[in-house]
């Protein structure tokens, strides 16, 4: 078997694959954060909880109603998106004029509530979600074994990421969004319903998180606390990439997944800390992040 730096090729490529998949999740989540940040100027601390809700909803809907994977892939994000719109409309909007720190704290409180309630009902040990039959098995690529589902996660995440990028950068709706980011008062003056746009943006952002949650359900352990850990990692990813661009969020997310995978291969003890170390280095060299424009 061929070796690279004393590590078998198969192990390396296996870890790389896991890295890319983790990176796909980081990309989806940081993309949602970036979209919300763009218009609302807040960091959505409930983003991890929304991701968790997406995964939990998938499992619960399957267990109670027998809703299958494909329906869940559509239904769970929509439900979570509606929850997000309600959250924006009834809570976040009330403190829109205040310091943005308050909306961060508000979403943090909401995350604690959701996580706490679900922990009481379902415990923290994790729910099982059976892999859909279509995705059982995999394909041998010669140098490694590629499970179908993992390939699907990468493809689906890339499609959604690209679609979001396209919508925001190339369509009229995206133009409104970008204009709202620049000057929402002027937009209002042009007769565009900015409050509605804000609600929908928040809803869309958390939909992305929930979509990531559905993708995660068959491969990660589904627990009420699954969102809080990944969220902090995603924060670090966002700091590394900078909030400047949608594309930057996607690229940084995948890149950091790969970095994490490589670390797991060559020096496992540092694998959970490596992204934070990268963040420290980036902060020292480029305080505004790799793709960031300004602080």
């Amino acid at each position, binding site marked *: 078997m061929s070796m690279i730096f004393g590590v078998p090729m198969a192990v390396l490529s296996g870890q790389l694959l896991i890295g890319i998949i983790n990176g796909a999740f980081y990309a989806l989540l940081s993309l949602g954060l970036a979209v919300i940040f763009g218009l609302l100027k807040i960091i959505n601390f409930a983003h991890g909880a929304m991701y968790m809700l997406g995964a939990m909803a998938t499992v619960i809907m399957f267990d109670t109603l027998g809703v299958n994977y494909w329906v869940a892939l559509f239904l769970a994000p929509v439900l979570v998106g509606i929850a997000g719109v309600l959250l924006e409309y009834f809570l976040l909007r009330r403190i829109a004029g205040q310091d*943005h720190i308050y909306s961060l*704290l508000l979403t943090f409180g909401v*995350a604690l509530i959701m996580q706490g309630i679900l922990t009481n009902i379902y415990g923290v040990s994790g729910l099982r979600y059976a892999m859909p039959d279509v995705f059982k098995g995999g394909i041998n690529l010669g140098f490694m074994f590629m499970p179908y589902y993992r390939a699907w996660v990468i493809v689906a995440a890339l499609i959604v990421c690209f679609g979001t990028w396209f919508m925001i950068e190339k369509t009229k709706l995206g133009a409104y969004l970008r204009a709202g980011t620049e000057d929402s008062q002027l937009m209002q003056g042009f007769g565009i319903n900015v409050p509605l746009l804000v609600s929908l943006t928040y809803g869309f952002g958390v939909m992305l998180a929930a979509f990531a949650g559905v993708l995660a359900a068959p491969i990660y352990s589904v627990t009420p606390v699954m969102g809080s850990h990944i969220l902090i990692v995603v*924060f670090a990813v966002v700091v590394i990439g900078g909030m400047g661009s949608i594309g930057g969020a996607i690229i940084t997310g995948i890149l950091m997944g790969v970095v994490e995978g490589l670390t797991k291969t060559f020096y496992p003890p540092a694998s959970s*800390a490596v992204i934070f170390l990268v963040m420290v280095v980036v902060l020292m060299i480029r305080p505004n992040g790799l793709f960031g424009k300004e*602080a």
Partner: protein
Amino acid sequence: MSQTDIRSQIHKSILKQQKAEDRRKLMLNGFLLVLLLLAPFVIYPVFLMKILCFALFAVAFNLLFGFTGLLSFGHAAFLATGGYTTGYLLSNYSGLTTEMGIIAGTLVATVLGLAFALLSIRRQGIYFAMVTLALAQLVFFFFVQSPFTGGEDGMHGVPRGELLGFINLEDNLNMYYFVLAVFLGCYLLVQRIVGSPYGQVLKAIKQNEPRAVSLGYKVDRYKILAFVISAALAGLAGSMKSVVFQLASLNDAHWHMSGEVILMTLVGGMGTLLGPVIGAMFVVNVEYQLAQGPLRDWVDPILGGVFVITVLAFRSGIVGEIQKFVRKNLG
């Protein structure tokens, strides 16, 4: 009456009001002090010490959040660093007296605070919160991996030892008065800092940073110093906590703890001196009461609910709302 007469009259009446207010404050403080001195005879001293440690933690956090306007989401790192350092030293070097261990813990937390500050200070607002959170997570992983912390089990059996080599801290009353003295010293220190010209600059930075810059203040230096002082006091709180409970655990390093200190400060009243103390009392009490009753599993969602309600309905916190009420109706 001539104009100067009127002016001096107004001046006098203002002075009079000031004096009356000072007297009122002095009486209130004296009353509180007597309460604190007598409290351990009525309430279990270890519980009181827990409140005092968290109160100091919150006071330290408030110096940064309430008075400088920087939201750190990583203060748990300093609490835990102080606690682990003190716990490790006191457990392994029996020659050390307790206060030496506590001073060492505080110093290490201070140095860590400087590192955090240098890395995060160029970011503002929510970015600052994210950077501090991520840095604290790095510290958390360090403690998880390091063998000396005891990992998930925590560091048990930290000896309380003797203060200055002759005051036995195994005695809960001695321990209580020591913790109280340290707490009051730090509280007065923070009061002094806030009232000093330096504290005024911090407030100016909070209210309008570009203006402070344009007035020629080196804003970053002021913020870094505030961060370091805050980290030092948080470390001191952690050091004392590990001595009081004879335990340093991963809980103190978890981001959850960073959230809790924000809640304490917010509920009590950010930007007021007494607020964080009241907030710490409130949160520790609520957690304790809930843990006793049928709602013991619902502590987290209830605290989350308190968070939401505080942010939505009374952002000035308990002390802030009382101040508003007094000013409106009695002032």
